[in-house]
């Protein structure tokens, strides 16, 4: 039979761990990355809104392209990372992959929402409407709902194992949906413009500083995404730690109650 002190031991260790400075979502690497991000994003803002020339057809409105397209790419990347991490989780079953999938999906949800918002703002001057029942728009909205479903599944109270299994299977179905969103412009004749950069003949539609600004905004966006993902992952990890700690403390309190109630007469050490 185990003694109460043995039960208490892991709780005390965990409490001690939270007092250490490691219980933050920052580290030296992420702080450096965060500081680097300031000039990187400032240069992006300069290039996008001031430095690059206005478009022949779209005029100043084209500047929204440098916001809209990187966000879309980030949203795809986040969903793919989430789906891949979920697949690996089903194979390896380690907490790390589960949390990566959850963090990426959450950032993906924000990015897809931002895509829809910025896209609407972009659509108003170029198409004359905020929203249209276009294939790509509708498919993106559906991806958003799928992600919200994923987050809802994660919020259902369950053990980490059960939660991971449920959410991994929901996340695996992101992939066919992203392919539909991405290909919808080609499959359906739609209002949304055709791919600008990634064409099969590798001759992009835009060039010069505009081209550079767009490529640069992808790079800056990915760096920003990496920073967000690391932080979100650490927060999720700490959250799981806190949940486990809360459970341990609750168990401990119940045990204390038991001993106070004269449970000790049964021979258990007090």
């Amino acid at each position, binding site marked *: 039979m185990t003694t109460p002190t043995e039960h208490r031991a892991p709780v005390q260790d965990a409490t001690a761990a939270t007092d250490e400075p490691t219980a933050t979502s920052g580290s030296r690497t992420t702080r450096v990355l965060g500081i680097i991000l300031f000039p990187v994003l400032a240069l992006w803002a300069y290039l996008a809104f001031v430095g690059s020339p206005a478009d022949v057809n779209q005029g100043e409105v084209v500047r929204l392209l440098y916001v809209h397209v990187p966000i879309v790419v980030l949203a795809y990347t986040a969903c793919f990372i989430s789906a891949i991490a979920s697949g690996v989780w*089903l194979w390896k079953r380690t907490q790390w992959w589960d949390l990566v999938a959850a963090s990426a999906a959450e950032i993906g949800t924000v990015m897809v929402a931002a895509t829809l918002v910025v896209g609407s703002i972009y659509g108003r001057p170029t198409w004359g409407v905020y929203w249209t029942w276009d*294939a790509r728009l*509708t*498919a993106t909205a*559906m*991806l958003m*709902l*799928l992600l*919200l*479903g994923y987050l*809802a*599944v994660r919020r*259902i109270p*369950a053990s980490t*194992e*059960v939660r991971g*299994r*449920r959410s991994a*299977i*929901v996340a*695996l*179905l992101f992939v*066919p*949906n992203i392919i*539909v969103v991405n290909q919808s412009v080609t*499959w359906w004749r739609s209002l949304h413009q055709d791919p600008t950069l990634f064409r099969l003949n590798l001759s992009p539609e835009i060039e010069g500083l505009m081209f550079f600004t767009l490529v640069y905004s992808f790079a800056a966006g990915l760096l920003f995404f990496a920073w967000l993902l690391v932080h979100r992952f650490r927060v999720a990890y700490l959250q799981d730690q806190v949940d486990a700690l809360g459970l341990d403390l609750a168990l401990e309190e119940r045990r204390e109650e038991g001993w106070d109630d004269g449970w000790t007469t049964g021979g258990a050490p007090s």
Partner: protein
Amino acid sequence: MWCCVLRDAWLMAGKDLRLEWRSRVAINQIAPLALLFLVLFAFGLDPDRGILVRATPGLYWVAVLFCGLLAIQRSFALESADGNRDALRMSGLDPAGIFLGKFAGIAAQLLVLEALLVAGVVILYSARLDGFGLLALTCVVATSAIAAAGTLYGVLAAGLRVRETLLPLLLLPVLAPVLLGSTRAFEAALGGTTTDGWPWVGLIAIFALVYLGVGIAAFGSLMEET
């Protein structure tokens, strides 16, 4: 191994369909509801039939989706009562077989429902059944996709307190491409341009195969949880 899986699937589907046949919930409640949808759409849109004729494919598939949700929920409500879930897990049936059996049971009910709805749109919305082959194949392929995704998410949501609200939220976005494809295929068939419809049937078939594959692979681990 596959013969055992198929035998288990056969047992499972037979059990579900026998239950449905004896309780008559699908015939007495879900089928009238499907016809009610058709009447409500007519009230909501245009009794003059102008819009109804043009919107027939979309309305048809929306009605199928809603009724499909009910059939899926019913199929898993059967398993959640009286600890049937544990009994099923202890039965020694192959999880892939259980998945395929559940899938086949739901698909069979949906196909009957779709036949009824086709009769409904012909009578109520004056739809003309040109391109019958395309219509029939679209029904079979889209039903497979709906039933496969429904079985996968049905077991995921079954046993949760929030299952009635969670299942539609999870399932409908996943089935949106199927709704789109089957609507377009029906439009092509009813509009007399069947050649436009076949690529859509292909697209739905890909989705159906993806959902079936994920279901066969993942059903066992989803059933384990309590």
